[in-house]
C-alpha cells in the first residue's frame, strides 16, 4: 500500500492507495501516530484509491481517532469506495466515525 502525506492549511492529509490489511496497517499506524505526536490536531484520510480494508485497518483508524480526540483534535475520513464503506458499516463503525463523501466535505468541516 502506498501512503501519500500532504499538508494543506495546517491539515494533515493521508491518501491511501492499495490494500489496508494486517500486512500494511502497521506502517500506516506509525505515520498517523507520528503526525499526532508532532502536534497535528486536524487530519483527513482519503480513501479514494483504497481498494480493500480488513479489521486490522479498522483497528488503526479507531485507535488514531481515539488518540487525536484525547488531544482535542479531529480526524475525517473521506471518498470511500462502496465495498470499503460496507466494511465500516458491518463493523458498526459508521455510527461514530466521521465519514464524508468528498475531500471538500472533509476540509470544509474544519
Amino acid at each position, binding site marked *: 500500500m502506498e501512503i501519500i502525506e500532504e499538508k494543506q492549511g495546517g491539515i494533515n492529509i493521508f491518501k491511501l492507495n492499495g*490494500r489496508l*490489511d*494486517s*500486512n500494511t496497517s502497521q506502517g500506516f499506524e506509525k505515520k498517523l501516530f507520528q503526525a499526532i505526536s508532532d502536534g497535528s490536531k486536524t487530519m483527513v484520510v482519503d480513501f479514494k484509491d483504497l481498494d*480493500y480494508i*480488513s*479489521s*486490522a485497518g*479498522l*483497528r488503526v483508524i*479507531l*485507535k488514531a*481517532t*481515539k488518540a487525536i*480526540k484525547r488531544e482535542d483534535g479531529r480526524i475525517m475520513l473521506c471518498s470511500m469506495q462502496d*465495498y470499503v464503506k*460496507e*466494511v465500516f*458499516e*458491518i*463493523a*458498526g*463503525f459508521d*455510527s*461514530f*466515525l466521521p465519514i464524508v463523501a468528498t475531500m471538500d466535505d472533509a476540509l470544509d468541516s474544519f
Partner: protein
Amino acid sequence: MAPKEYSFELKSDLSELDTLCQHLETFGQKIGLSKKFIFEVNLVLDELFTNIISYGFDDDCEHIIKVTMTLENKGLCLSIEDDGKPFNPVEFKTPDVSCSIEECKIGGLGIHIIRKLMDDICYERSENKNILKLKKGTAKSKC
C-alpha cells in the same frame, strides 16, 4: 468448463495476504463471480488467516495453511485447514458493535465480520488440525 474446485496453500507469514488476493482474483475470473463477492470472500479468508498467524502458533517455524474453495449449485464453500492451537470461531463471543467510540473494543471484530458475510460456519478439530468450513450463497450478497 471452469474448474469447480480450487485449492492453494499459504505460508504462515502476513505477506501471504497478497498471494491470497491473487488466488481469489484468478478463481473469481474463471468462475465469473462478482467483484463484490470476491471482495467479501477475500475479507473472510484474510480475517481467518490473520487470526491463525497472530494466535495459532507458539513457535517460529513455518506452517502451511490450506485453503479450498468449491463451487456448488447455490453457493461457494470454503475450507481452511491449519495445524495451530485448537480454536473454534463458532463458539467465540463477538463484541457488541452498537457501542460508542469510547466503549468500542476491537477484539473479535474479524470474527464478527466473518459471521456477517457468511451464511454457514462449521468447525472441527481432527488429527491436530483446525478445519473450518464456511458457506456463502452466490444468489444473495449480504451486508
